Every structure is written in C-alpha cells, then in structure tokens.
C-alpha cells in the first residue's frame, strides 16, 4: 500500500483544508515532516489513523473524543465540520477514502461522540463501495490491529521493554496486540470455543453417570468440580473487570502525569531544593546558636590575648630582678670574705706566720672598691608585686572562643551563598510552574501509587484463580476419563463426545503453541537482521525472544546482556517493529512520530540509513532536536522524496508547508 495524498480539513491544529503529497519514487521514498513539540506531529499521525479507522489515540491507546478532534479556532467561528481524505493505491488499485464528522443540527454545544454525525465513503478505481463493506476493504489493505506497528509513536517505544518483564500488565497488553497482528487469536478463539463445548459434553457425561449406581460417586465429585469451576470463572471475570477498571484509572493518571511531567519534575526539584534550603537554614541557626554561646565568654579570650604582651613584659622585668638578685648575692659574698680576711686573719692559715701590712693593704683597697659598687641592694617588694601581677594575668584563661566564633561566621557566610543560590532557583521554578495546580499533580501521583498497588494485588488474585481453574480442569479431565473407561460405559454418546472434543482441544492448544513458536522464530530472525544493521556495538551477535515477544541482546558468547542503555532499548524496539512488520506480511507505509529521541549520533545515523529500507514509504515526524535539518539528513539525502515543515500560526493553529 502506498499513500498518494492526505487531505486534512479542520483536524486538531490544522485549520481549514490542507493537502499533503506523499513521495512516490521507488528509492526517494522518505518523507520528512519537521515540527516543534506541541505543533501537531502526533496529530498528523492521528489524521491518518482516524482517516482509516475513525479512531485517534492519545497515550495508553486512549481514544480522543470527537469534540476534541475539530480545530478549536474553527469551532469558535461556528464551523463544526471536520474531514480526512486519503488517496492511496494497493495491489494496482486506486482508493479514495473520505471520512468526516459534523455536529448534529439539534446540538448546540457538542460534548459526546453521539452529538456528531459520521460519514464514510470509499471509491476503488472510481467505483463507490457500499457502506457495510468499507471497513472490510480497509482491513484487507491494512488490518486495524496491524496499524499499531505501522503508525506508531516513537516516544512509546520504551513500552516494549515491558515485554521483558514477566507478569507485567502492560507487557501482556502489548503481547496481545502482537499476537493479533500475527493471527494467533484465530486459533485461540477456536480453542476457547472447543473448551466451552467440552464443558457441556462433560456435564452431559456426568448426568449419564448419575444414572449408574457405580458411577454416581464420580458424578457427584464431577458436579462439585463444575460448581467450583463456575465460581472460579465468576471470580476471574469479576477480577478482570476490576483489573480493567483500575488499569483505566492508572492509564488516565499516567496520561495526566505525562502531560504535566515537566511541571512534576520541577515540583520534585522544588521539594528537593526546599529540603536543601531547610538544611542550610538549620545549619545557619546552629552556627548562630554556637556563636551566642561563645559570645558569653569571648570577653575572656579577648582579654587573654590582650594581656599576653603585658605578661611577657612583666616576666622580662622579673627576670631582670632575679639576675640582679643573684649578682648582689655574689658581690655580698665576696665582700664578706674579704672583710673576714682583713679583720680576722692576721696570720697565715697555712704557715702561721703574721701577714705583713704590705700584703693586707691591697685587700683593703679591693674591699673599698667592691663596697662602692651599685646593685648590692634589691627592691623585694617590686619583685613580690611582679609575681602577683603575673599570677593574676596568667589566671585569665579562655578556650579559643574568638577563633571559634570567626570559624562559625565564615561557615555562615559560605552557607548563605549556597542558600541564596537555592532561593534563586526556587524563585525561578515557582515562576515557571505558576498557574499549574502542583498539589493536584502530587495527589494524582499518590493515587497512581495506590491504584498501582491494587492492580498488582488484583493480578495476583487472578493468577491464583487461574491456577486453581487449571487444576480443577485437570481433575475434571481425570474423572471424565475414569467414567469413560468404566466397564459398561464405553462407547456411550456422551463419552465419545467428551473424548473427541478433548482430542480437538489438545490439537488446537498444541497448534497455538506451534504457531507461537514459529512466529517467534520468524520475529526473532527478522529483528536480529535489523538489529545487526542498527547497532554500533559489533560484539552484539543478535537478539533472543522470550515468551512475551520481549527481545534481549546477546553478546559474543550468546549470553544475554542484562543492562542496556536507553539508546539500545530504542534500537531493540525498532528491530522488533521491523520484525513484526515483516512477519505480519502486511506492506504498508511506516509513519513514525519522534522515533529518534533517545539516540546518540552514531545510532541515529544507522537508523536513518536503515529506515528507508523498512518499507516502500517511510514518513518521519521529527523535531530539529532529533534530526539536524542539514547535518543528519546528509546520510540519507538521496532517499528523501519530500520535506515539510509544520509552521505555527497561533497556539491552536498550525500549517504544513512543503520545503
């Protein structure tokens, strides 16, 4: 299938009529549509989806109500009509598909989908197709289930990671979609039908057995199991309803949270900054308290350092006194000795002879000289005073309060600089999120957590009931076999019916397993081939598929790589999409919305080189942050057949212009 032209009229941001031609060339098969966020890239994808299937999807595959599909500027002007026309060819035939909605005449302000009239028309090679057959014809070209893998939102590629998580609800949902694409449900429905018939047949067998005295006990047991099975099935039904209800609520909140993600992140940042601010304020208070305590005794520390030099001076003076004392003492000793020698020792102490006057005269002269020398007397009262003053001053002792105050003040200054930076950041964020009800966002987050918990519990309960159901069916099968083998019962109609249906059910169950196995093998092989072209890591040898169609990367030793980057996840998801497209056998244009968001330049280059070969027509809806309009397009310039820009006209209006 190849799209020739898309005609949009009043669809979402596209006011009035706009025509977009698609590239038709065999090799120049890529169409690039550049647009900033919020300008209408996803709306373009939805225009195609709505044109084919009458459904436009928001996140979590939620349907956008009709009242939101019509351009708001047009409705303000009283124009409540919206239409999409798609001109395409498939297997040599030309199709013209027109779908439109218009407000009913009797409705003033439409709110519900039923307030609109929908019209659909299809011409094949110019011949109108009658109403009932239109959807059938479309499904022949591109089945609705398959469209998910041709018209897809690149930002949701990470959802495919859930396929790797056993028992993940979202993973299950995606698995169901994948199996729908690959045709597994046809066999599953057949098997389910057979299980219903088998159940009826066993009831009939049990009723027959009731009439036989020897088999009555079995019949009673079987009856008990049937009652129990009914109760388990009711439980499963009820739990499934609960699960769906909860999932819907979770999806709704996730949508809301996704739309306000930036605000939430800012709010989280604000909370973090507020905590940081509190910490700073606490530390400032703590330091201030410390300073106050230190200020009480800081005076002593100031005194202590102030009197240190005085104390030194006093000590120096005291030392001088001490030296004088020693000198005076020595002088006095010498004088005393001389005097003694002159006055008492007239004879020599050694020989006893009288010492002549001529020898004693010099001693007298020396004594006279010494007695005239100053410093023989010391002022002891000053020394005492000095000692006292020094003791008093040395008694002024402190504990380094001043230095500790200065250290705390420096610390406060540093914290205040940080605090100011945090406060500025808070002001900036508050300005940015002004007008958003951030408390509502937080409440929704709490609700999301609560519902998530309930959902997990419901899933566990369901698993429990399903296990019990399986056990119950095994028991029923066993009793059924015992009844069938009982002497005299062989060959009865009810036994034969149970036997045949059981065999058929086994054949279909086995068939489902084999089909799944084959499909998985095909998907794995196609995806591996794509992956090898897309990855930049040469030691990766391929992909391995699990029960849920989740793909793991294998290293050179064929071992699963547990940790993978966001870029690698995107490559794997794209490989899976390619594998599914090829396995499904459908040939349709691939329209990708924001597919390169999480990729580094090398992976981006690989993907851009690979994409043109993924389908006969490839439409990339990108913003300039993903693909640089000049630099990145060079690698596949020869494959670009058309380039468009989405121009902003106003907040609620955009226009697509060919470049």
């Amino acid at each position, binding site marked *: 299938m190849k799209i020739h032209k898309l005609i949009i009229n009043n669809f979402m941001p596209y006011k009035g009529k706009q025509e977009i031609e698609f590239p038709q060339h065999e090799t120049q098969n890529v169409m690039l549509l550049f647009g900033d966020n919020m300008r209408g890239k996803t709306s373009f994808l939805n225009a195609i989806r709505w044109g084919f299937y009458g459904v436009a999807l928001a996140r979590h595959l939620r349907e956008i109500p009709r009242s939101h599909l019509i351009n708001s500027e047009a409705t303000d002007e009283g124009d409540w009509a919206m239409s999409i026309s798609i001109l395409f060819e498939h297997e040599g035939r030309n199709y013209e598909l027109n779908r439109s909605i218009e407000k009913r005449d009797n409705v003033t302000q439409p709110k519900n989908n039923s307030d609109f009239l929908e019209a659909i028309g299809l011409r094949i090679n110019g011949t109108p197709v009658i109403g009932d057959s239109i959807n059938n014809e479309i499904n022949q070209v591109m089945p609705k289930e398959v469209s998910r893998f041709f018209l897809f939102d690149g930002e949701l590629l990470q959802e495919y990671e859930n396929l790797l998580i056993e028992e993940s609800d979202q993973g299950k949902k995606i698995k169901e979609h994948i199996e729908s694409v690959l045709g597994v449900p046809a066999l599953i429905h057949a098997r389910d039908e057979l299980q219903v018939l088998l159940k009826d047949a066993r009831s009939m067998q049990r009723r027959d057995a009731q009439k036989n005295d020897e088999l009555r006990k079995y019949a009673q047991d079987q009856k008990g199991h049937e009652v129990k099975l009914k109760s388990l099935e009711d439980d499963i039904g009820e739990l499934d309803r609960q699960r769906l209800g909860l999932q819907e609520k979770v999806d709704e909140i996730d949508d809301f949270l996704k739309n306000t993600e930036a605000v939430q992140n800012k709010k989280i940042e604000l909370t973090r900054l507020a905590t940081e601010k509190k910490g700073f304020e606490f530390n400032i208070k703590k330091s201030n308290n410390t300073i*106050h305590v230190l200020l009480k005794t800081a005076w002593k520390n100031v005194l202590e350092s102030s009197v240190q030099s005085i104390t030194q001076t006093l000590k120096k003076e005291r030392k001088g006194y001490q030296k004088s004392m020693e000198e005076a003492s020595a002088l006095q000793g010498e004088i005393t000795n001389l005097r003694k020698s002159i006055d008492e020792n007239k004879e020599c102490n050694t020989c006893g002879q009288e010492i002549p006057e001529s020898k004693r005269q010099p001693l007298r002269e020396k004594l006279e000289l010494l007695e005239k020398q100053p410093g023989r007397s010391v002022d002891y009262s000053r020394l005492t005073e000095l000692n006292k003053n020094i003791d008093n001053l040395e008694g002024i002792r402190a504990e380094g309060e001043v230095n500790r105050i200065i250290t705390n003040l420096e610390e406060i200054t540093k914290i205040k600089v940080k605090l100011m930076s945090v406060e500025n950041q808070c002001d900036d964020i508050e300005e940015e999120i002004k007008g958003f009800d951030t408390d509502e966002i937080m409440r929704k987050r709490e609700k999301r957590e609560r519902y998530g918990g309930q959902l997990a519990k419901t899933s566990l309960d369901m698993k429990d009931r399903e296990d019990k159901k399986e056990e119950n069916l095994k028991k029923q099968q066993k009793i059924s076999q015992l009844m069938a083998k009982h002497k005299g019962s062989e060959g009865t109609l009810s036994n034969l019916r149970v036997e045949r249906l059981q065999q058929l059910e086994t054949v279909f169950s086995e068939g489902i397993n084999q089909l799944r196995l084959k499909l998985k093998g095909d998907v794995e092989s196609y995806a591996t081939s794509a992956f090898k072209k897309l990855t930049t890591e040469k030691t990766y040898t391929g992909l391995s598929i699990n029960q849920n169609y989740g793909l793991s990367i294998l290293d050179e030793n064929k071992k699963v790589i547990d940790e993978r980057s966001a870029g690698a996840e995107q490559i794997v998801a794209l490989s899976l999409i390619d594998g599914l497209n090829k396995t499904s056998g459908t040939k349709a244009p691939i329209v990708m919305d924001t597919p390169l968001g999480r990729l580094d330049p090398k992976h981006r280059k690989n993907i851009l080189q690979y994409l043109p070969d993924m389908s006969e027509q490839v439409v990339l809806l990108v913003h300039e942050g993903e693909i640089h309009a000049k630099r990145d397009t060079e690698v596949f310039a020869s494959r670009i057949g058309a380039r468009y820009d989405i121009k902003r006209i106003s907040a609620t209006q955009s226009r697509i212009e060919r470049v």
Partner: protein
Amino acid sequence: MEEPQRIGLTKEANDYLDEILDSLNSEVEEKGLIKFDLYRLAVALGVKNGNKPSSLSNNTDNAFRVSELDTDKALFFAVKATNIQDNEEPIYRVVERLAEQGVRDFYKAYKSHSERMPWDKLLAE
C-alpha cells in the same frame, strides 16, 4: 583609692545595649545573651584596642554589682596591667569608661551594618 561597689552605663549607652541584645537574642532559640556578657566584651575589646576613654559626661546607672560582674577580677587585673588609669583613679571606673565607649562602638557598628553585629570585624586580630 577606693574601688566602687557598683558600676554601669549612661542611660543612652544602656538603651543601645538593650537594642543590640534584643536584636541578637531574636536570632536564636538558645538561652539569650545578657547585659553582663556584652558589657564585659566591650571592656575586653577596649583593652585589646588600647582605648583610653575620656571621663563620662553623664552619670551612670550603677546597675551592675562589681562582685557579680567581675567574679574572678579578670577585668580588674587586665585593666590594671594596662596602666591606662589616671593616678589614684579606681580601676573599676576605668572599666566603666571602657564599657561605655565599647557599647557605643558596638552600636555604631550595629547601625552601620544594617542592624547586625559585625563580629568578624570587631573580633578580628
């Protein structure tokens, strides 16, 4: 030279001290500072800076008992050791004059720093 039993501040300096203490104590939850604390600090900083304050023109309130203010006589010994007192002048009168000038200096600094005490500058070596 007989030492006074009580000393204090002039009314003006006393009002300054009250204002500074109110401001400082409003910042903390801990037990607040009292007049004694800043009075002693004012004297100590005066000694450190080698202040030689002139006689007081007004009478002081004699609010502080010397035996409570200077329990271990540290202020007394320190001031005495600086020899800044006039002959025969009681040491505690010098202490009083140092306190008066110190409190006034505190207030001037407090006012010129947007009513915050610039302890880093006042206590800097």
